[in-house]
Every structure is written in C-alpha cells, then in structure tokens.
C-alpha cells in the first residue's frame, strides 16, 4: 500500500475531523455531534449518519449531482461497517413490518422486539450506539460522519474508512447530565468544558479495505488508472482481530467463488496491521 498521511483536527467547527492523503487521493472527514431524538426503531441508541460527497474540486466530472450515487454507495458501506443495526437492521425491520402488522394488527411492540437489540455489553463490533443515548426514547446524540473527497486517485473507500477511524478517535463528545425538574420534565445540561468531554470507543470499529481483481490477481490500494483496469472489486470490512464484519462487491464482471474467498482473505490479512499502524500513529507523542 501507499503510505498514508494523516492530519487531525483540521475542521475547527467539527467535534472531530481528519484529513488523509493516500497517494494523491485526498479526503477530509468531519464528525459532528448533535442532540436529537432517537430513531423509533431503536429508542435506546444514538443516531448515526454517514455521507460521502465528491467535491467538484476533485474533477470537473463531479459537477452538479454527478457522483452522488457513488458517494451514497460508499456511505452505505462505511455506515454498515460502523454500526450493525442502522441501515441493514432498518431494512430488515421494515421488511418485517407488514408481516407482523398483518398478524397482530396494532401490536407495534412485535416489531420493536424483532428489531435487533444489542446485548448489554454493546454490539459485537462497530460503535456502541447505546452509549450515545442520553434519555431513552427522548434524546440521544446524533453522530454525523461527513466525508468530502477533494481528490480522487483511487482507493477512495479505503481512504474514507481510515479517515473516519481517525476522525472518530479525534471526536470529543460533551458530557451531559439529565435532571428531572418538579413537573417531571427532563432537562439536559451540557458541560462544555473540554476536560469533561469523553471519547468514543473505537476498538471495535472495522476498517473497510478494497480488494480488486486485476487480471487474475488480488490487488489492494489501486491508483486511479489501475482502478480503470480492474474488472471487479470487493469492499470488505475487517475488524482489528481480522474478522469479516461485512462486505459489498462492485464492478462490472462476475468473480469466481474461489477468487472471492481469496479476496476476503487478502483483506483479512491486511486490515489488522493497517488498524494497528493507524492507532499507533494516532497515539504516538510525535503527533
């Protein structure tokens, strides 16, 4: 892989941000936190939203709305890697709804229990959205991860994923206290002092690695011209332990099943080392 260059805290207005260069690929990720109401499907969890935008600065082809679908696809892959339940679970719950609704009429609780409920210890991977809850069913932190691609020289997915990890490490969330006043109304007090802020636990956040097929070889970290030569690619989310936490395929041609497994394995071998390297850099005093 090409060397990765990272810079943290580039956006003053964001709770956490990172800029990342890999080759000439240049992405900025900003994380914002806001107090919002939790999703009705998961009242005890914070919200998570991921967007990926291509700046027209990257290339004139991204002028107007072009590149939005591509951005959405990347965003979906990153979002699925950060939290198990938001998008995939939402779709599953939605699919479950008519079936349950038909059987039990007004029983809305049926779907609520059917929706994936992470155990008390939090989900097995990704971010623990339960920690983002302020008051069950009423208020929770909404975490917005916004990525901006300033230059596309290949491996955008990997770059966005790594930058997201770094930005999440950089993120500070203010402490809040919920007090109940006489009328039973809940009030939220924000403690704005930087010392009182807490950080997210990123130890379970997987990295998304793109493995592409060029000819009959598995290749990682392609530059833009190389990307045009690859027939298909697999974006694999792998956590630090080397376990697969999700995958999506892309490309115009089919892949043989054996090749698919080889690609996954490549990703599994690569990602833990990458994860450790990034964390070591982020924790090093040199920064």
């Amino acid at each position, binding site marked *: 892989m090409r060397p990765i260059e990272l810079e943290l805290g*580039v*956006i*003053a*207005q*964001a709770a956490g*941000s990172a800029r990342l260069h890999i080759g*000439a690929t*240049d992405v*900025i990720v*900003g*994380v*914002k936190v*806001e107090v919002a109401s939790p999703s009705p499907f998961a009242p005890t969890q914070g919200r998570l939203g991921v*967007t990926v*935008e291509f*700046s*027209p*600065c*990257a*290339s*004139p082809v991204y*002028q*107007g*709305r072009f590149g*939005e679908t591509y951005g959405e696809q990347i965003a979906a892959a990153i979002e699925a890697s950060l939290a198990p339940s938001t998008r995939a679970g939402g779709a599953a719950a939605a699919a479950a709804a008519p079936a349950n609704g038909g059987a039990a009429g007004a029983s809305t609780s049926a779907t609520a229990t059917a929706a994936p409920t992470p155990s008390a210890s939090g989900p097995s991977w990704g971010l623990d959205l339960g920690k983002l809850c302020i008051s069950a069913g009423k208020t929770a932190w909404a975490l*917005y991860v*916004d990525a*901006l691609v*300033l*230059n*596309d*020289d290949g491996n955008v997915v990997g770059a966005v994923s790594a930058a997201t990890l770094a930005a999440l490490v950089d993120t500070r969330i203010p402490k809040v206290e919920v007090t109940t006043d006489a009328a039973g109304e809940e009030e939220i007090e924000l403690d704005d002092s930087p010392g009182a802020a807490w950080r997210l636990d990123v130890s379970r956040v997987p990295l998304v690695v793109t493995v592409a097929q060029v000819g009959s070889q598995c290749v990682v970290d392609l530059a833009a011209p190389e990307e045009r030569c690859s027939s298909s690619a697999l974006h694999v989310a792998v956590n630090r332990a080397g376990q697969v936490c999700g995958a999506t395929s892309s490309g115009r041609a089919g892949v043989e099943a054996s090749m698919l497994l080889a690609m996954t394995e490549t990703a599994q071998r690569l990602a833990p080392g990458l994860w450790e390297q990034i964390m070591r850099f982020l924790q090093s005093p040199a920064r």
Partner: protein
Amino acid sequence: MEFVSPEGLRLDGRRPRELRRINCQLDVLSNADGSAIFEMGNTKVLAAVFGPHAVTRRSELREEGALVVCEYSMAAFSTGERRRRGKGDRRSTELSMVIRNTLEQAVITELLPRSQIDVYVQVLQADGGTRCAAINAAVLALAAAGVPLRDLVAGCAAGYLDGTALLDLNYTEDSGGGPDLCVALAPRLDSLYLVQMDNRLPVDTFQAVMELAREGCRTISGVMRAALLEHTQRLAVARGITAAV
C-alpha cells in the same frame, strides 16, 4: 447583544477596523490546473480551477471570449450547526452566480476565445464572509493557473453595528441583524466588481462603510499578492530559471 465593547473591542477581540488573520496556500490539489486555500479567521475556502480548456457543451461556446463556469458548494461539516446541504440549493446557486459574475469581469476573457474555465469553490469552514473568501480563493486559484487577469481582485465585507463601522464580519456579527456590505475591488484599476448589501443603512454612513470595505480589499489584495509572488519565486527557483540567468 453588544457587538462592540466600550473599550472599542469586538467579540473576538479585534478592533473595528481590523481584519482577521489571513492565510493563503497555493497549488494544494494535484489534479487541478490551479488551486488555492484562502483562510480568514475560522473561514476556510478551497478553490480549484480547471482550464482554460475546450468547452464541454458546444451550445455554450462563445466565439468572442472564454466561458467561466462556477460552482459553489459547502461541506456538510463546514457550518456550526450541521445542515445537510444538497448540491445546488438556492443559496449555493445564488453564490455561484455572484462569483461567476465577478470572475467574468476579472478574467481577460477576450484572450481566450472559444474556451472554458471551470472554477469550483468548496467551503471547508464557514464563519462569516464566505462570499468574499470564495472570491479571494477563486482569484488566487485563477492566478495560480496562469489565467490572465485584469487585476488582483479581492473581496471584503464590512458592516455597521452598535453605531460603528466594522470590517470583515464573522458569523455572529453577520447574524447580528445589521447591514452587511460585500465588495470586490480591483485595487489598481480602482473599480468595483461587486457590491452587495442587505438591510438598510443611511447614505452618509454608507460612504464610511464602503470606504472601510475598500480599504479592506486593498489590504487583502496586498496579502494575496505577497503569497503569489512568493509562490512564483519558489517555482522559478525549483525550475532553475534564476540560476540560468
């Protein structure tokens, strides 16, 4: 809310006639023909220029001069409150038009017939005065791309709050409800390329605010000039031009 303290200091500790800290970086993107980051306090704007190149849509081809295309977009994380701004919302479209109009006058388009210049402005951080910062970043990027310009146009905002004319408003001052004047000036030609103002302002005060904004433009233009000169010199040395002479 008090915008100017009795000691004559503003919310961020500036004097009324003081600009924020300016920082210019040139050639920050490798793909673009010219690019620049213009920072002014907490406002940070990136501009990229592609071209001049052949027109992409033949119907827009102009025989007599170059076509300037502008797109202004704000990053989702750029504002204090996160707001999902789709591309092409009304504010962005309006600002794209404003920047385009200003730049079309600044570029000597007659020299580049039948061609097109794309200017993309991306706001990375917004803290008031993005309009002017966008113009400044775009002019820097155009100069870095070697596009002939009539003058080093610079933009600056000024306002009038608490009975004082204030230079270069930040976001809090901008939303303070007072008049806000945005000016783009060609310092050598001493001609105005853009004047925009909202809210009302007595005519005699307008003169003072206008003069202040023009003063600000001259100062900014000077800073931009220094940045460009230094950059040019670096490039020339790397290229061995000076050594050869």
